């Protein structure tokens, strides 16, 4: 994981962030830091799921078989590769999403609502759209 409180810009694509923020002395927004970490984990989970699904499909699903063997290769009435490459990871993927949502995704405050741009400078509030979103 990247240095979370480092405002110098070494982030997701480590090393790419540079001069813009190197000289800055302001603290990074915690929601940004959390979101960045969470996004990295999401991408990793996605890649792992893909490796599992495609890897097991490669292992169990490709190639021709004689009828008897193909008939035997079934779990719970679906082809073996469907069981390992779709059913199991689908259940697992849903469970991982549950874990991510309730145990990993930080419950961050998302900030105060600003009025839509284009409305803020109106000098005749009565004649324009009503201020901020709720």
């Amino acid at each position, binding site marked *: 994981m990247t240095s979370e409180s480092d405002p110098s810009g070494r982030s997701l694509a480590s090393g790419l962030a540079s001069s813009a923020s190197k000289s800055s002395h302001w603290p990074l927004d915690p929601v940004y830091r959390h979101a960045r970490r969470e996004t990295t984990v999401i991408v990793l989970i996605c890649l792992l799921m893909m490796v599992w699904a495609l890897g097991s499909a490669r292992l169990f699903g490709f190639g021709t078989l004689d*009828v008897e063997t193909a008939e035997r290769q079934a779990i719970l009435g679906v082809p073996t590769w469907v069981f390992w490459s779709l059913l199991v990871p689908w259940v697992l993927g849903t469970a991982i999403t549950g874990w991510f949502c309730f145990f990993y995704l930080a419950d961050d405050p998302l900030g105060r609502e*600003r009025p839509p741009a284009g409305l803020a400078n109106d000098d005749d509030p009565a004649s324009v759209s009503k201020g901020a979103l709720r």
Partner: protein
Amino acid sequence: MSPDAIDLFGATAMRSVAGDPLGLLAQQVYGGALIVFALYSVVVFAIAIIADRVGRNREFLGEYFLGSRSLGMWAFAMTYAATSASGGTFMGVPALIYTHGWAVGLWIGGYMIVPLVSMGLVAKRMNQVARRTGAITVPDLLRDRMGSPWFGALCTLTIVLFLSLNLIGQFKAGAKIIETLLGGQFAYEQGKLLVVSWLGDGLGMEVALREPGYVLCLILFSLTVIFYTAYGGFRAVVWTDVMQGAIMVAGVLIMLPLTIWAVGGLDAAHRKLVRMTPPEHRHLIVERVDATSGESNDTSASDDSANGDSASGDSASDAASTASIPKGAWILLVEPESGRKRVFRTKSRSELREGATQVVWKPIDPADPPHLIPVIELTTPDEIERIDRQELPPGLRVRVAEAADYTAAERPVPTFEYASGAGEAGAYVRLPGPDPKRPEGFLSLGLAMSFFLMWNFSGSGQPSNMVRLLAFRDSRTLQRAMFTMAVYYAMIYFPLVVIFALSRVLLPGWEIEPDRIMPEMAAHVTHLAGVPWLAGLLLAAPFAAVMSTVDSFLLVNASSIARDLYHRSIDPRASEGRLKAISVGSTVVIGFAATWAALDPPQFLQDMIVYTTSGLSTCFLAPVFLALYWRRFNKAGAFGSMLAGLTVYNFLYGYGYWQSGFRKMEPLEPFGLHPFVVGAAASFAVGLLLSLATAPPADAEVKRFFGEEEAEDAPA
């Protein structure tokens, strides 16, 4: 009929209906669909009116286009899920599964993690940054983040161009789905007559005379969706999405057990599927014989057509004058010498003209040779044995076209077999799956990877999805909605794969028109279970899916014009009344323009929908992702990133189109990778390189989006 014979047309209750090209759906099914459609329309209108009432007294633009950023868990999850699931989910995907078997499960396997990736990737940051700038639309947000009105304009232009094309296709798809569902109903037939007299004869609209059913359904579809979207805005769209999402999941969850029961359990179905082999594409020559001469007949024609079981209401029993063979008719042929039984199904309608000695097929596709009736031939022994009836007017002799017949017609002898999987038992349960055209099969491992990535990441880059990420209430809503959507998708997509992988066990021969497998299965399984009225609810799923997508696209397009173009660029001080008129007006105008264009739509409609949907994701994914997560990302990088995506994606499509001699909209796929993957990779690369090669953004700007909120700005 043998005890195990396939009930081809759902027995007598499924007797054909005049006007239905295939004549397969029962009146009861149509009746159910009509009642459901009527109820459905009443409910969406009511929702629009209530949504409008609730939204009054709130800031108009934010309410109309974003529901005042107040979406709760259910609304957020369901609107996101329903918008993503389009008509293709319930018509196109089932057709693919039917054609290629279980392999399609891996093709859409990426959906196992789509809720987490497509929602989670940018949701929290996007919502946060939108609050900081007060953004209502995606171009709004990008324009402020990159500090460039011109970049905002590029975003708006890209959205309007892609979505306008997309809407034409979606409107046509919606109308076609309603036509499939309602065709044959009394009210529908009366409506057609009105269209002919008012629009055709009255206003001189040629298309109303040619295809009154389609025009009627297009008008029904358009009026419904335009009214509730324009009147109720985002809130109405979201609430109807919740209802539509519920209809979709109900349809799938009812259909799954009915299907498993109908096939006799998963194990029994697997044993049958393993033995299935892909059909062959052939042509038949049908000739008239003199019935009184007693000349031998090549066919094993029974008298099914005479006893009323014919699939076509207008199949004449009197072959001496005019007869027709409908699309979808089964033809049996027993070879006299070997006794071999062959079963064919017609791919299009053909007619015997007065005085002709040969059945003259009216070609739909000019590429097919005249006088040769295109059919598929079943190759699975079990299916051949089970089909024991023929719908062919008596007095006709059938033979299979041979090489000499093609030569006589001055056509090359076509390939009869599937390019992959032909004669291969187990083809439908194994990978890569049978394919009529691709010798390498339906799904290589590389292609599977490409699609896995595309389903996941293209959802994140879709403006109609992203605008929903601007609208949820807080992080807790995001947590719950993401998990809800994961459960919801698991309940929709995997069962869909199961249902339609099994569908070919119940309904063979639908390679003639695989797009109809969803309505046919709905009719078939509900009939077998003795609840044909339930088919109406199942058939509502596809039109709920297409409507929930169209309403969102319509509103995103209208917001581009009303908010991004007019309000931000032309008249920032516009009064609320004017903004309201322009917002509602642009929704209505865009809706009717799409309807008008859909009356005479361009070619390659389905391809156009795919092209525009993934095109938008290709253009937006990298700029949005980099804008939210990379502090060094600057204006030059943003322009470069979007233009690179746009250029590479269009090049791949343009090159493929040119390569096909402008006949097919099939993109070039370098290394088997989908254009989205290539385009998005180019977009990321150019965005990164151009940003690094140019001056970094001002520190104050970076701080505005990446720094902590000032104390006085902290949330109350």
